[in-house]
């Protein structure tokens, strides 16, 4: 819970806890505050660089939608397919998320018009804002709907990834939904609760080396106005951050703080992981498992040699597709959650403790984040890198109408990375497994030495997932 209204102690933080603050500062010693870097600060402090980036991405989105609707129907010759599913999707998984957390959210164009309407201005809130500003329903909070959105896209992925018009309609749908929700609900309801990419980015952002964090807690406690909260378009209160999953790195809180008490930190990878949180939220565990299931299915459909599976995934509405959809949902909603629950339960059955199963599942789900992130990167290596030459092709001829904007260039050959991609994929999967086991052990060790025994079934779960991915990618 990072929202102000969810924190009962917010007005009463004990300011005399000096010793505790010193400990907290020491705990954050491995951080570099980028907001204090002289040449970087003006770029963050000013709204303009970010606004220009967002206008650029908004223009790109409108262009992509237009090309998808009116350009060539052949996916590999259409800018919309190649740019969204090869260039952007690859950049998101290989650069934005692992090195910048939710940095894409800070320049994402989809919520932009809705936000301008909601606040009644472009750079700052205007006098007249549109919208009802209702609070998001409590029962719909969490990442349940984001998991649902990701599953929905997964069900039609074979068509979305290959049919330009469908890609455009998906983008239009997300765009309209974001605007509509901005006019009904307060803050960035779409980004926080519905956007599947937001859920994907937010979860794996916890493994990334970037965070927005307060510097001195007592300064925030003494500050009555809470200008950071007032400024945050996401409706978040930085004092309450437990991790980086919710923060969209928009930097509004840093700009608004009169005490300069917020930092944009460069931190060690995975700093949010391995902390025991008193939570019983299962939505994050489900999202993590949906990501594992999806990457397995996508690897089988798009990289595997099984033609019948590709046909089944592509022929939406057919009996074969119904079989594919049932299998996809069964794996993501029953089989993987079932095995994971059994693994957590099995571990705890052999140890005498008062740890509740729901709490253990919610806590141990953190170990799935590095496993999933590295699996997605490994999948992307062979899925997208070999097709990067198509990017040059669609820049040369975005609509597939025979134009030559960049002159006459040969873009017909695919890039052969077969020699090295298997090695890279193995290393990525192995690093993911090592990282995941370390996080899992750390979580258990925090509960006492005997508790590390609880990890044996989870270790088997993580190892089995890695072996399946190895078989799918290099087998």
């Amino acid at each position: 819970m990072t929202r102000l209204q969810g924190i009962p102690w917010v007005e009463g933080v004990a300011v005399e806890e000096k010793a505790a603050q010193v400990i907290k500062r020491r705990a954050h010693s491995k951080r570099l505050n980028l907001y204090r870097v002289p040449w970087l600060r003006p770029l963050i402090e000013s709204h303009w660089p970010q606004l220009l980036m967002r206008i650029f991405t908004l223009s790109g989105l409108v262009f992509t939608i237009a090309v998808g609707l009116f350009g060539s129907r052949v996916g590999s010759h259409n800018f919309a397919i190649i740019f969204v599913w090869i260039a952007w999707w690859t950049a998101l998984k290989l650069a934005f998320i692992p090195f910048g957390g939710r940095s894409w959210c800070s320049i994402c164009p989809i919520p932009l018009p809705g936000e301008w309407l909601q606040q009644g201005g472009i750079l700052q809130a205007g006098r007249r804002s549109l919208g009802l500003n209702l609070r998001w329903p409590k029962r719909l909070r969490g990442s349940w709907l984001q998991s649902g959105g990701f599953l929905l896209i997964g069900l039609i992925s074979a068509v979305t990834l290959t049919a330009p018009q469908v890609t455009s309609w998906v983008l239009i749908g997300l765009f309209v939904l974001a605007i509509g929700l901005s006019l009904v609900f307060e803050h960035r309801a779409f980004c926080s609760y519905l956007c599947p990419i937001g859920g994907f980015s937010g979860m794996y952002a916890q493994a990334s080396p970037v965070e927005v964090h307060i510097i001195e807690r007592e300064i925030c406690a003494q500050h009555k106005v809470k200008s950071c909260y007032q400024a945050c378009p996401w409706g978040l209160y930085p004092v309450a951050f437990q991790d980086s999953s919710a923060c969209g790195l928009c930097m509004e809180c840093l700009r608004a703080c009169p005490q300069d008490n917020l930092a944009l930190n460069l931190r060690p990878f995975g700093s949010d992981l391995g902390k025991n949180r008193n939570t019983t939220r299962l939505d994050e565990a489900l999202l993590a498992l949906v990501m594992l299931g999806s990457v397995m299915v996508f690897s089988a459909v798009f990289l595997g040699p099984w033609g019948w599976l590709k046909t089944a995934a592509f022929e939406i509405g057919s009996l074969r597709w119904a079989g594919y959809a049932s299998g996809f949902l069964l794996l993501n909603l029953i089989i993987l959650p079932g095995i994971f629950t059994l693994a957590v339960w099995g571990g705890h059955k052999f140890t005498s403790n008062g740890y509740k199963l729901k709490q253990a599942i919610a806590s141990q789900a953190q170990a799935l984040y590095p496993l999933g992130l590295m699996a997605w990167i490994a999948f992307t290596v062979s899925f997208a890198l070999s097709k990067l030459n198509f990017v040059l092709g669609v820049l040369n001829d975005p609509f597939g109408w025979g134009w030559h904007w960049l002159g006459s260039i040969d873009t017909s050959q695919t890039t052969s990375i077969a020699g090295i991609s298997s090695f890279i994929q193995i290393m990525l999967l192995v690093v993911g497994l090592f990282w995941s086991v370390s996080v899992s052990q750390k979580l258990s060790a925090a509960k006492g030495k005997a508790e590390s025994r609880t990890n044996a079934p989870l270790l088997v779960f993580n190892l089995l997932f890695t072996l399946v991915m190895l078989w799918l990618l290099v087998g």
Partner: protein
Amino acid sequence: MGLFILLFPFPASASVSNPRSFQIDAKRFAYAPAVIKVNKGDKVSIDLVATDVVHGLAIDGYNLEVTADPGKTAHLSFVADQAGSFRFHCTVTCGNMHPFMTGKLEVGQNTLMWRGAALAGLAAFAGVWKARK
């Protein structure tokens, strides 16, 4: 250690060069058979038959390519001198799922996958050991 496990050369088993022939039917995003297995050193001969539209076949790592017109057969032959698992894919835009029309050529044992599995086991052990330290 990881690189050692991945790259350490195993002694090659004695292989006999045999001629191997395959007919691969290419139709609507799929090859049949989609997986062909040969031994290292075999002389491989492939007849690619396109049964609906134009299809191609290129084998990653072998730098080989062939294209077959609808209803026609195209021929490809080579010596399987590299061991491992190699993807082959269609080279002619044949429909929406064309970029994902793939098959697999397995030459000898896929030791890379087993090395990867061994490395994964080692990584799991190292993760436990690191946390206990």
